């Protein structure tokens, strides 16, 4: 991965926000209010916050689905404002809650979307499909020729992950990817995304409103409220030193829920 919009410089952060502000028309408050943050390469950052706190805005700015009103966003040291958005997005994996699989394409064709755009040769595409399906624990023989309508919600999101991962993007953006999936499947998918991240050592940014999920998956957690980053620290640090009342209140909801999950996550 050299050259192009995500060509890496030395000692650069994978993602850097500098004084980023964003306000949507007809909204009384800032979606992002002077956000500054640096995310190291290889980190699995979860962004935790309630609805409307700016967390989705945050990640949609990274692949330029939204444009900041003010400030700079740099990926591996390069200001994305100077890059072609279409080319930039091909190097950033994107997974959303609604999955967004193309219903008229089979599982294999869905996964082949970016490889086709990138004009990979046929063998490379076939190998990629096979490899990705195995990575997300779907039997290629059974699943590659199915249509999305023939998959359960959990299976669809596995394909969504496979589709985003196939070109091995240096940055993965995940916007509440498991939000609509039942508890048991969510647990499995969480474990798998954690494993996949650990294997790849790419930079993952994962939005959630589930504090258990945020603490379980993140090597670092960003806690957001009303367009501000309240705390950015490791899960352990957040539990031991919550920086203000908002974080303390969040952690209280966790104690009411369950303690063993936190133990299980090895925090």
């Amino acid at each position, binding site marked *: 991965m050299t050259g192009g919009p995500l060509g890496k410089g030395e000692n650069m952060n994978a993602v850097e926000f500098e004084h980023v502000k964003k306000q949507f028309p007809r909204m009384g408050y800032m979606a992002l209010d002077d956000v500054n943050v640096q995310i190291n390469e290889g980190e699995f950052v979860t962004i935790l916050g309630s609805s409307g706190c700016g967390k989705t805005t945050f990640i949609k700015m990274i692949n330029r689905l939204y444009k900041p009103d003010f400030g700079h966003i740099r990926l591996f040291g390069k200001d994305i404002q100077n890059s072609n958005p*279409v*080319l930039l*997005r091909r*190097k950033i994996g994107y997974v*959303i809650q609604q*999955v*967004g699989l*193309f*219903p008229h394409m089979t599982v294999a064709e869905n996964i082949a979307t970016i490889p086709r755009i990138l004009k990979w040769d046929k063998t490379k595409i076939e190998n990629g499909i096979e490899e990705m399906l195995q990575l997300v624990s779907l039997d290629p023989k059974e699943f590659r020729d199915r249509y999305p309508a*023939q998959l359960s919600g959990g299976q669809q999101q596995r394909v969504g992950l496979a589709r985003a991962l196939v070109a091995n993007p240096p940055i993965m953006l995940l916007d509440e990817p498991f939000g609509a999936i039942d508890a048991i499947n969510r647990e499995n998918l969480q474990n798998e995304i954690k494993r996949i991240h650990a294997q790849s050592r790419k930079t993952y940014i994962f939005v959630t409103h589930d504090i258990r999920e945020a603490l379980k998956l993140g090597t670092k957690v960003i806690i957001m409220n009303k367009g501000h980053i309240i705390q950015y620290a490791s899960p352990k640090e957040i539990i031991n030193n919550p920086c203000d009342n908002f974080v303390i209140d969040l952690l209280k909801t966790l104690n009411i829920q369950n303690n063993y999950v936190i133990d299980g996550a090895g925090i």
Partner: protein
Amino acid sequence: MLGVIAYFQTDAANYINLVLEHVTISILVLLISMVIAIPLGIICSRSEILQNISEHLFSFLRIIPSLAVLIICIPFIGTGWKPAVIALTLLAIPPILLNTIQAFRTLPEPILEAATAMGMGTTYKLFNVKLPLAFPLIYTGIRTATVEVIASATLAAYIGAGGLGSLIFTGLGLMRVDLLYIGGISVAILSLGTGFLMNVFYKYKTRYLQIK
């Protein structure tokens, strides 16, 4: 019945010719209509105002009888196949246009966002995501238009455009019931048969919608 058999014994070549004329004029009309209506529908779907204008205009055009359009055309372009093509195109555009607008206004937002976020350019996204997703509705419009055009092309014979309508008008003029039967039933079979074949194709192309 004897008249029908006799007709096919003596005039089979003429009959095939009429069928071909009918089919040619219908295909020509449908191609022109699609080339106009689909891009126009895509453009209109982007603007509320254009959408309203085109919907009202073409809903209005739809209620003008084709025969009236045919006859209005004569002073400007004379008789023959040209005014027939114009009149039938005006008939075929509304269902295709209205369905195209509807299809493009109801494309699922998350899927389009996913397409954008995967690095598809505008044109690539149009041909690989938007048009395939809009296909079922657009195609339904085309099918409606096709059946209407094949049936209405009969009238085109009235102003000398040929086709199976010639048989019917000849039959009317000569009081030949056998010709009326041949003409009428042929048009019905052609129209229903085409509709059926188009259904088969639709089921094949949209099998992803039917499986569960």
